[in-house]
């Protein structure tokens, strides 16, 4: 499978990472090198294998469905690049 610059641009968009058009050919070629390395996985017959879902077999713990934390607005906002009136501030969102 080979990735062209159009696919590289789509992946960058999906990942929300701005890539300048002149950088796309180099990016596509890096993707192809890495994917070429990954292609080896195709050599194995894995039809009868269940995908691994948990590293160590264990049942996830349950706890009572109650509030255990909260009321920390100032601490939550303490590291925000832009916080105003108790909210995270972002540029105007116009769809």
């Amino acid at each position, binding site marked *: 499978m080979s990735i062209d610059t159009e*696919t590289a641009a789509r992946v960058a968009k999906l990942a929300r990472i701005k890539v300048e058009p002149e950088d796309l050919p180099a990016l596509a070629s890096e993707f192809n090198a890495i994917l070429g390395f990954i292609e080896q996985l195709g050599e194995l017959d894995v039809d009868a294998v269940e995908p691994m879902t948990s590293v160590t077999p264990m049942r996830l713990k349950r706890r009572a469905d109650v509030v255990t934390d909260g009321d920390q607005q100032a601490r939550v906002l303490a590291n925000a690049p832009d916080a105003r009136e108790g909210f995270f501030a972002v*540029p105007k969102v116009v769809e």
Partner: protein
Amino acid sequence: MSDLNALTIAGARDALRKGETNSVELTTACLSAIEGADALGAFVHKTPEIALDRAAAADARLAAGDAPDMCGIPVGIKDLFCTEGVASQAGSKILEGFKPQYESTVSGQLRDAGAVMLGKLNMDEFAMGSSNETSVYGNAVNPWRAGNSDAALTPGGSSGGSAAAVAADLCLAATGTDTGGSIRQPAAFTGTVGLKPTYGRCSRWGIVAFASSLDQAGPMTKTVRDAAIMGAAMMGHDPRDSTSADRPVPDFEAMLTGDIRRKVIGIPKEYRMEGMPQEIEALWSRGAEMLRDAGAELRDISLPHTKYALPAYYVVAPAEASSNLARYDGVRFGYRADMAQGDGITEMYEKTRAEGFGAEVKRRVMIGTYVLSAGFYDAYYNRARKVRALIKRDFEDVFAAGIDSILTPATPSAAFELGKEVADPVEMYLNDVFTVTVNLAGLPGVAVPAGLDKAGLPLGLQLIGRPWEEGDLLNTAYALEQAAGFVAKPAKWW
């Protein structure tokens, strides 16, 4: 006492209890070693005030009696751990200015045991790298040099700052994290001991996430005994990490008898790679002989899916990273890009992430995005998860056949020159060829310094253990350490 910073944890613990020194003295010695070692690029955020406060508190606790083993021990903390009120950037520009409002469970356990934090340690950005060259802070440098050369060598990665700091005696020990080899490879490159515990032993809560199903914290120390002491202090169940194991943590140090008679050590044939340097091959054979001479039985084993571990890792890890790193959006913490007139929220995300992430992180996030995208999810991500199941089964089979631990080289080479391998990402990935299987299978692994190469650089061997049996694994590592008698130290040039 002279050179307090050169002490081991065990040595300092005993000296503290005999009244031969105190934590303030130990801490002061480390702080002055750190001040003189900027050329190593190991400590990237220094916290001398916190250190001296904690040292004084530790001395009071020691005087009152019954203090834990780690009480008063000066350590460095990898920048990946969130530390309350202290910069925690994961080596990335995108977390510039981030000062967590909370403490990670692991660093919190160390703090509560009385350990003294000296500062934060350099690392590859988001722990993605094998040479510490992707860090926003610049390179960490290996205190070891080859022969008479003054070329700067990598301390390995991603826990490069931790390894350099321990090897150069800037601290008694350090925390590391290991997603594909990030504790064991730098330990091997610097002549130190690095333990990656079984997945689930150490809580991941408050550690900046890279690949959640692979990440595991562990100790980086001067000796196996120290790894046993510090490892036990870092482990334990944490309700805030759903994958944290609710099982007791044994007294690993008490298990260090050095008696490995009747233990069965597996030597996997698939780890004998084409093009492997003769010195690594010879070291591996010598290590096996040492274990045999100590009374263990050697057995040739096969782990048939080994060659697929790296390709599987380079699907699973980027996939999880692309998801974990989606949170860096310039809204809640860290860096936000300057915006142009008319830019909306999408432009803010895209510019912030383009400027805030380095090249390797961007590459992996995008590869992860690709393998998870519609149409490719089955071909790449699901297939890699199936191959991962096969790799895990390889290990289960040999353990079921009676193997207690597995001996392999830790790395395919000694430390290489900074700047040499950056150009080719896939070439760089091969550094993890012997360590990555252990993360995929969730097993414990430890790197032990076992010799020097022709140029006088340290080489390490890796032991892999059964899940949850770090005590037995460390005891075998202890026997290997005793037999190898590695005592070399880097000559101070910094």
